[in-house]
């Protein structure tokens, strides 16, 4: 995970609405509509219009990976398109570097898209008639840069994504993973500050997806972009997110770090998402350690924020346990026994949660 500069906000999305239907702006001009966003969304829905995004607000800090997660139809793609005005928001503000994007005219918007934003698409959105190099240089060509400059800058990102040697191939000759590398390279060619990724790895098969996630994290550790990343895969979100937002029916359900979401889910919907997550990935050394153990010198040391998953190999070879440090001080010891009892405890609490959910579901149906 990258270190975030939480003092500076790059992008701020404030009370953004996108309503599809007849005369959508009227919902925000007339006074007699409910002020509470949830009620307003309900009213809009009952009147036959669709609130694809309802009162969405969040901030993305400089250098942060902000993940938006939700099932299909939850409005996440709409939100990311509102950020670049591919979809025109019906109401609200999108503030990039302190300026409201929605007040920009067409020419200014094109300029912002040319220099400040890059976007990666789920099905790649490559131009079939252009080679890899031409696709990547396409945004530069639109800006009217010279051929040499186009080539130089394209070569740089081609190297970054590891596509050397495929420059003159056409998209249809590449595998899905390679096509998405082209998409990533193209979005990076203009050296954007804000990087939008709309389910970039969802169309890839699981092995490639994992590889691409690693690649993505490697690139980000070098470039430190401010990122909005859309996914419907909670595990993917867990791997890459600094902070994440969960959406349902166009509304924000919860915003927080992955651990916060798992430990304190805002509601059952979030809890259900997190229930699939293997506990060893979520539980940290600090959560499962025991205090009051004697610490011997041959014990390996790990930070209290290390996941249990990461210390399992150490535990396998050191039956005596692993020392947990927090800011240089030893605060406790993780032993195989302490891990097992912690896992058993968490599993039991999840079990009761889902049983409760199930019984509530039955009650709702009857």
């Amino acid at each position, binding site marked *: 995970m990258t270190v975030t500069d939480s003092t500076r906000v790059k992008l701020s999305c404030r009370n953004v609405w996108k309503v599809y239907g007849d005369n959508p702006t009227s919902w925000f001009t007339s006074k007699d509509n409910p002020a509470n966003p949830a009620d307003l969304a309900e009213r809009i829905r009952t009147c036959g219009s669709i609130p694809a995004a309802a009162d969405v607000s969040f901030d993305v800090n400089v250098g942060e990976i902000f993940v938006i997660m939700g099932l299909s139809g939850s409005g996440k793609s709409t939100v990311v398109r509102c950020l*670049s005005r591919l979809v025109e928001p019906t109401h609200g503000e999108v503030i990039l570097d302190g300026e409201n994007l929605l007040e920009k005219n067409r020419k200014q918007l094109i300029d912002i898209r040319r220099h400040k934003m890059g976007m990666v698409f789920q*099905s790649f959105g490559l*131009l079939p008639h252009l080679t890899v190099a031409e696709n990547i240089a396409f*945004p530069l060509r*639109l*800006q009217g840069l010279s051929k040499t400059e186009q080539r130089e800058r394209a070569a740089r990102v081609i190297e970054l994504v590891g596509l050397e040697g495929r420059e003159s191939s056409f998209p249809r000759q590449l595998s899905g993973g390679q096509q998405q590398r082209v998409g990533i390279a193209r979005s990076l060619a203009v050296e954007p500050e804000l990087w939008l990724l709309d389910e970039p790895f969802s169309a890839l098969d699981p092995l490639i997806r994992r590889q691409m996630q690693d690649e993505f994290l490697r690139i980000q550790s070098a470039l430190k972009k401010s990122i909005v990343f859309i996914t419907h895969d909670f595990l993917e979100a867990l791997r890459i997110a600094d902070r994440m937002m969960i959406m349902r029916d166009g509304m924000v359900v919860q915003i927080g770090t992955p651990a916060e979401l798992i430990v304190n889910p805002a509601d059952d919907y979030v809890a259900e998402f997190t229930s699939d997550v293997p506990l060893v990935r979520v539980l940290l050394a600090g959560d499962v350690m025991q205090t009051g153990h004697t610490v011997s010198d041959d014990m390996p040391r790990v930070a209290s924020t290390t996941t249990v998953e990461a210390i399992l190999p150490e535990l396998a070879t050191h039956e005596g346990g692993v020392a947990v440090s927090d800011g240089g001080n030893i605060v406790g010891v993780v032993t195989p026994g302490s891990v097992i009892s912690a896992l058993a405890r968490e599993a039991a609490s999840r079990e009761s949660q889902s049983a409760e959910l199930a019984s509530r579901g039955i009650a709702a149906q009857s």
Partner: protein
Amino acid sequence: MTDVTDKPDTTDRPSKARSLTTRSSLVWLAIVAFTLLLLFLRTAAPWLITYPDGWILPITGTMNIAMDWLVAETGEFFRSVSTALEVPMSGVRNLLNWLPWSVTLLLLAITAYAASGWRLAVFTVFAIGYMVVVGLWTESMNSLALVVMSVPLAVFIGFMFGALAFFYPRAERAIISMLDVLQTVPAFAYLLPILLLFGFGAVVGLIASILFAFPPMVRNTLLGLRRVPPEVIESGLMSGATARQLFFLVRVPSALRQILLGINQTTMAAFSMVVIASIIGGSSDVGWEVLSAMRKARFGESLVAGIVIALMAMVMDRITAGFANKDTDDFTKGDGSFFQRHRYLTIAAIGTVVLFALSAVLPMLRVYPEGWEYDPSGPLNTAIDYLIVEYAALIGLIKTWAFFFLMLPMKIGLEQTISPFSWGFEFTTERKLMYAAAAVLATALAWFRWGANGAVVTSLFLVTIFFGITKLPWPAVIAAITFLAWQLAGARMAAGVLACLAFLLLSGVWPQTMLSVYLCGIAVILSFALGTSLGILAAEFNPVSQVLRPICDTLQTMPLFVLLIPFVMIFKIGEFTALLAIMAYATVPAIRYAEHGLRSVSADAVEAADCMGCTRWQLLTRVKIPLAKPVMMLGLNQTIMYGISMLVIAALVGTSGLGQQVYIGLGDADFGVGMTAGIGMAIIAIVADRLTQAWSKKHQAELGITPP
């Protein structure tokens, strides 16, 4: 058309639907009874069969007056357009005639090579060589000149309309209806107004060919632009494209393949119209060569010229299709010397210079010496004559048999066909009563076997062949078709169909319409039966498919005109020849759709059936054919459309009906007559099209299948 009837499976549908079906079956039985009643009354009221002249509205006269007015008011303008077009027109023509044949051959061969490789290049050399050797070079170049002029204009106009329709939905609706009209009114019919407006000359061919050829370009441009995936557009926008950049650098290049397919179809349509337009003469081109030879019954000559047309069509089709299907990565991109980047151009330029230099020394490279020409028409004529004489008995037998046992019964009915001269016995009253009894029995059996709908279809068929399509009372025909439209697509469609039929009646072309329906009807039924059978065979046995595919391709690219030649040669002019020519063309879509439908039946369904232990025959009849039926019905739709478009051309070899009426209008420069008949053809086409589409859609909805 009695074959177009709904036969729903009544066993497993909700009872409400079933009661509806029976109710409409009752209406159908009422219509049969109504028909019989009118036929019973026909001696007392002959106007039931023949719509009286006195009731005809002066539509053709009004049209002529309107046209005269238009010509008088705007003739100046159109004639000046005509003069303006004449200049580049004759320029192109002179250029093509001035170019040494060897240079033209080289350039076309290189183009063919660039489009799809050496096979096509060799074929092109062969095709051009043939034109040179048989001595039709000038005629070929005159035809080519018209195509060279009309294609770029048609492509430009088509692209503009396509883009306009893409951006403005309101314009789209107007443009699409315009295309529907242009594509259903037979090509012959708008030769005449063009002739009246633009005056006599090669320009008429040019304008007609542009009008005929631009619609496919519009449709393909629109389709291509529509099909660009939204993410590609979004990625263009996010790359910072302006509106103009988005259109020219993202949308159009992404749609290029479809647009190139449009150019291919436009070229073929333009060429086909150029050939048809030669009927008005004035430009000594290959089409005229075929026609005038045919009129003089010199079939050898017309066949030789017909082959030129066929070869030109094939070369044009393969070259344009080659460019459309080409993988762009064949080109070395970006780097490389000028020669590498433009190798075809360089070879062409060097070759042209060399050939020009050579032809200065060797004049036979410039103008092919007459002494070296070889005209195969003499021996061909002898061969044809020999065939016809040798097999006169067989040919005569086929003709008579088809005439007495197939065409006449459909046309004027068994009632008038059967005589000692034709069938060998008198159709006495007792025999007629026996027929009636048999008909009643068959209807009852059909009811027992297939239910009320089966009885309706059987009885309608038996009544029709007894009395003949042209002798059916018009009120009954109108009632039947209108009710069919209501049943398939609701009240609005029924009202539209009724209005169309009323136009046919009131404008006085009803008898000709029925003649056209009769000829086209037989052709469609036979073509559909034959084509579907072949299509099923092709889907089941790959070798059959491999044999049929090139034949279908060739038949489809051929200008319709050429298809007439072999049949006229053997069977002379007449309705039977026209029938065969229509069938040759209309069988193609039936084959194609049947094969496609069967091959695209979902593999899951086939596997499931296999697992249940279906035999191959059961698999075909119980699973594949029922699932492929909606696609096959689209094939029927196309069969009808192909049949109608060929019907007009077939009028050249002696049919009566609307096609001939169009032709008469053209000959007499009678705009009203030609146009009314043209509209009549369009009405038949539109009604048939809408009804079969509705039928297919209904079936698809029942099967839960989305159309391909």
